[in-house]
């Protein structure tokens, strides 16, 4: 369980993730989740996407987007469970699952982006 002083650190990750998610996810989700699968736009080719992903800046962008967004989720979801469902007695397990999930996702993102090109 987090000590009181760690709370600020997690809050900064939450806050940074909130900004990143707010600015970047809508357009990406619109493109890859709706516009491309539904054929609203000409889909980018595999080669086009690979050329993009090979750029170090794009990889850095995707890493920051994935990692910070997950830490944003971990923090917010943790408190939603505390306050919304009033399950304070499960503090430790919720803490572990939320931040553990964010750490695992960060590692997976790092691995994929490191080995993709």
């Amino acid at each position, binding site marked *: *369980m987090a000590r009181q002083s760690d709370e600020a650190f997690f809050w900064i990750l939450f806050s940074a993730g909130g900004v990143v*998610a707010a600015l970047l996810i809508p357009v990406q*989700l619109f493109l890859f989740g709706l516009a491309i699968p539904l054929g609203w736009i000409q889909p980018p080719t595999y080669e086009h996407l690979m050329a993009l992903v090979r750029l170090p800046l*794009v990889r850095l962008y995707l890493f920051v987007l*994935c990692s910070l967004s997950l830490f944003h989720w971990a923090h917010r979801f943790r408190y939603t469970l505390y306050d919304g469902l009033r399950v304070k007695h499960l503090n430790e397990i919720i803490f572990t699952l939320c931040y553990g999930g964010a750490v695992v996702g960060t590692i*997976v993102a790092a691995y994929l982006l490191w080995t993709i090109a």
Partner: protein
Amino acid sequence: MMAEAKPTAARYTEFHPRWYRPNVSVYWWMGQRQYLKFILRELSSVFVAIFVVETLFMLSALKSGPQAYADFQNTMASSLMIALNVICFLFVLFHTITWFNLAPSAMPVRLGGKRVSAFLVAAPSYVAWIVISAGVYWLVTSWSLT
């Protein structure tokens, strides 16, 4: 109070002192629109996480080659995934709007002793959002190496 600073230190024994707190229902947020909005706003984070999982699957498919990516695209075109992504998109938009609109309250800006209006504090976020979205859209659809 110790119990407040370290919630985990609480032990539930038969002789625990009675807390003079009203017992709040699990469904406390369903009564009022503001509370419901709060919970929906907080739950938007779940859809943020779903988006990240989808992105990781996409990267994994790209890494595995053109055939794996074609399979991934077919999955994304299924009605189940479209329905999920419509819901995700609405929640993420809700997150964006509530996040930007929170900035003026979280960070009151003062100029010359006067508080800058909430609209003026939030507006740059919306401008940045539009510019960045247009940039990402262009990179994905029209950018070319040559």
